[in-house]
């Protein structure tokens, strides 16, 4: 592995880990607030899948960095400006419709992205994708069913779900952005060229929204910045809560 490719792969694994840990944490915020017990357990399980993915990506990043850092340092010892997650993942959980719509957007994204990552020439990234693909099938079925039920439900649930779709739409464009680092990895057959995936994502999401009697928004606004460390104010608050124990009690074990 050349130095440039290695540095880019480290950055890439960190980005994918950041996406997973931030979304995983947001989902975990629903634990004990679910509409009923089974749903509460389901959400907890999905959060665990994402946190598990983050651990695999960070462990690989730490291996590539080879500077004594561990997966925990990646998760707990970096501040919001160092995080490279997509903004969609960090938005506060909002109401149940909001979280399920975000989950649908993310689940469809992983449904189209992971099979590409599976083809990576990098064995570790490919192995992580192989595990995540299987889990994502279950995630998508669940978020799809909820969006269907809420969109095509009562007047109130429809209104809230449409509001969530409209509020989140502008954050989805960033999912398909490429920069120099990711382009280099895509050219090397290591990373995914996400810019080619938007059409498939849009088709799948539009079909589901339409079936749920929801309106697919116009593409008239977009917010970007997560991949360069420019976040919404929400990430800092989230990380404060996520990192406080680790930072307050260095080396703490139980």
């Amino acid at each position: 592995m050349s130095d440039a490719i290695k540095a880019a792969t480290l950055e890439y694994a960190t980005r994918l880990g950041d996406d997973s840990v931030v979304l995983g944490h947001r989902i975990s915020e629903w634990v004990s607030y679910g509409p009923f017990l089974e749903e509460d357990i389901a959400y907890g399980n999905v959060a665990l899948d994402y946190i598990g993915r983050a651990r695999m990506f960070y462990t690989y990043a730490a291996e590539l960095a080879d500077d004594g850092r561990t997966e925990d340092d990646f998760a707990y010892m970096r501040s919001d400006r160092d995080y490279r997650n997509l903004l969609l993942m960090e938005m506060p959980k909002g109401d149940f419709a909001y979280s399920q719509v975000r989950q649908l957007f993310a689940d469809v994204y992983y449904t189209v992205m992971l099979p590409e990552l599976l083809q990576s020439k990098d064995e570790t990234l490919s192995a992580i994708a192989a595990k995540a693909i299987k889990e994502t099938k279950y995630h998508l079925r669940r978020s799809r069913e909820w969006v269907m039920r809420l969109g095509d439900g009562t007047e109130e649930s429809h209104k809230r779900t449409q509001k969530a779709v409209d509020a989140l739409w502008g954050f989805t464009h960033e999912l398909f952005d490429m920069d120099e680092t990711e382009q280099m990895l895509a050219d090397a057959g290591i990373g995914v060229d996400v810019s080619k995936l938007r059409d498939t994502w849009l088709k799948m999401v539009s079909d589901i929204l339409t079936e749920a009697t929801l309106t697919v928004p116009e593409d008239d606004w977009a917010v970007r910045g997560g991949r360069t460390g420019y976040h919404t104010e929400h990430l800092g608050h989230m990380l404060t809560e996520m990192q406080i124990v680790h930072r307050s009690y260095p080396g703490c074990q139980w």
Partner: protein
Amino acid sequence: MNEISLMPEEQYRRLQQRNAADVKDLWDLLDQVKDPEVPVLSIWDLGILRDVERDGDHIVVTITPTYSGCPAMNTITDDVIAALKASGYDQVEVKTKLSPAWSSEWMSPDGRRKLRNYGIAPPEDAELDDDGLTPDAHAQCPHCSSRNTRRISEFGSTACKALFQCNDCNEPFDYFKKI
């Protein structure tokens, strides 16, 4: 006519690997290590024990997680080290291997039987839906064997299970998902 039971290829390969190993005694020893979430199954039964190698006094055990976020992996690692230590092996290294990704196909036939007796329906006790996922009904109840059951949650007490309820005996039960 006698039925010839067919073993899935993956299970057959695992069994071959274990029987052909020159450290067969270590495989047998590790077959005693139970999964902390499903204590009737050993890590062999579950298919997460992937390899055992010995180089002099140094033992390398390879395990694989069922789900990415399986919280049991740390406990399993500790249990593997403790089990080997109790038998006099001090130099133990436990490696986690992600690829190939764990499949419920790897579960041993004995494991499936034990699972059912424990009150958890094994993967083959439900017919999967068109997408190859857990169906919304008809997983066989491990308590009364009825097929008149319904899914009440996509996810159960752990990521590897879904929750069902039997319409005949009314008991809720876990179904071990096929992945």
